[in-house]
């Protein structure tokens, strides 16, 4: 019978990052029912943005991940188009100025360098911005990365370290005996193992169900428009204050807009603009209401008028794995020894992928060096 020291379920950015770290000391098999990076991790933006996170623990976690990025290209031996170009949140309405001021104050207290700048300063940095903005916040700590390259880089590095990556292999069941994992059933056979990492992103709930654990991770849909290649016009990431309102969905940050529309704008090294985005709970529905595309378009043009002239070549739909509290779950499930969840990164999985791999490796090795980061990510059971 086939055996492995660990089986990782899911070949997205999280599963590949985890498999890479675990491979250092184990025989690891990674199972992916489709392609590497073909789901959420291939249908998303490229922002490693710190200033959009809630002040407090979320910032601390994001900073820990961001630090790993500084050496990651060297470590993975390839370019992932990692750029420290900073990020900006545009403020369009006077009424948003107040909560953004408070947001910035709290970010600064949390140790993040962000400052409020006026519309003129913002335009000096991003010349294509509209003249009608009231200001922006700017942070040099934000960065960007190509998520497709990142996932492939983790997967290739994992393979070099001996991980057996099996595509088109679907997990259909998990075998438990006396409260511990003993094997994984796939549509291509059985693998005997005592350690399973559930890195199935938005589908992690279905995997948890296989061991009888209720796990509420639901898909929060996002749509992004992609333009033809154009000469450089956007530096780093641009979000808007309405994005913060949509993301955190709390009155404190203003009212959530229809379709959860909020600007997210970036440009890839090859010149394509990524123009987003939306946040909706519509299951895995892939039908897009034309009104939704039109709203993304008009919102983007209001902030950056010259975008009106670019040609859109396609749209992407991704499903953020939403947990409800803005944080992923990284934990061994109590009562099911050997079943570890590393999922639910919602809109931050690209930013958090590097630290997630390290946290899982530390957790399964029973080390205590990352206790402060792991504690708040525990699975909450009522």
């Amino acid at each position, binding site marked *: 019978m086939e055996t492995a020291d660990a089986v990782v379920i899911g070949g997205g950015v999280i599963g590949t990052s985890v498999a890479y770290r675990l491979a250092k000391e184990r025989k690891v098999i990674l199972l992916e029912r*489709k*392609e*590497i*990076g*073909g789901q959420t991790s*291939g249908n998303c933006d490229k922002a490693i943005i710190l200033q959009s996170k809630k002040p407090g623990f979320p910032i601390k976690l994001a900073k820990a991940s961001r630090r790993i990025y500084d050496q990651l290209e060297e470590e993975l031996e390839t370019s992932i188009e990692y750029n420290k170009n900073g990020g900006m949140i545009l403020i369009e309405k006077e009424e948003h100025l107040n909560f953004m001021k408070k947001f910035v104050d709290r970010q600064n207290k949390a140790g993040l360098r962000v400052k409020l700048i006026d519309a003129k300063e913002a335009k000096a940095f991003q010349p294509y911005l509209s003249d009608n903005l009231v200001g922006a916040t700017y942070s040099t700590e934000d960065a960007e990365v190509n998520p*497709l390259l990142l996932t*492939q880089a983790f997967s290739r590095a994992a393979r070099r370290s001996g991980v057996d990556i099996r*595509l*088109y292999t679907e997990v259909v069941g998990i075998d438990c005996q006396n409260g511990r994992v003993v094997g994984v059933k796939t549509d291509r056979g059985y693998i005997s193992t005592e350690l399973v990492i559930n890195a199935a992103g938005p589908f992690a709930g279905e995997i948890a169900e296989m061991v009888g654990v209720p796990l509420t991770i639901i898909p929060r849909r996002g749509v992004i*428009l*992609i*333009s*033809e*290649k154009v000469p450089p016009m956007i530096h780093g990431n641009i979000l808007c204050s309405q994005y913060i309102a949509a993301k955190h969905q709390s009155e404190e940050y203003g009212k959530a807009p229809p379709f959860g529309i909020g600007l997210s704008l970036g440009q890839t090294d*090859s010149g394509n603009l990524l*123009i987003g985005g939306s946040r909706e709970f519509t299951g895995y529905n892939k039908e*897009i209401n*034309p*009104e939704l*595309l*039109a*709203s993304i*378009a*008009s919102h*983007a*043009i209001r902030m950056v008028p010259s*975008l*009106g*002239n*670019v*040609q*859109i*070549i*396609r*749209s*992407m*739909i991704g499903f953020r794995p939403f947990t409800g509290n803005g944080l992923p779950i990284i934990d061994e499930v109590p009562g099911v020894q050997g079943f570890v969840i590393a999922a639910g990164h919602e809109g931050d999985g690209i930013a958090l992928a590097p630290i997630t791999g390290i946290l899982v490796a530390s957790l399964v090795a029973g080390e205590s060096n990352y206790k402060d980061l792991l504690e708040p990510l525990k699975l909450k059971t009522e």
Partner: protein
Amino acid sequence: MQNTIVCRCEEVKLGEIISSIESGATTLRAIKVVTRAGMGICQGRTCRPLIEDCLSKTIKQDSNDVQQLNFGNPIRPIRLSELANTRKG
């Protein structure tokens, strides 16, 4: 032959397509993700038949079995301002 351009929009050569298939990309989507073929302005309208052919020859699979690339809407390139104007009211 290896240097023949298959995807003109993204300038992807035949050799790159074949080596992606050989290293495990066995669907159009996987080839696209690895090589960028089909990600350009025409969205694979020109290169798709070529890649399908290449795939079916390399892995000896009938091209009808090969998973189709999906065309994200809009169907043709459209200016962002036109897209914004499709909004009702």
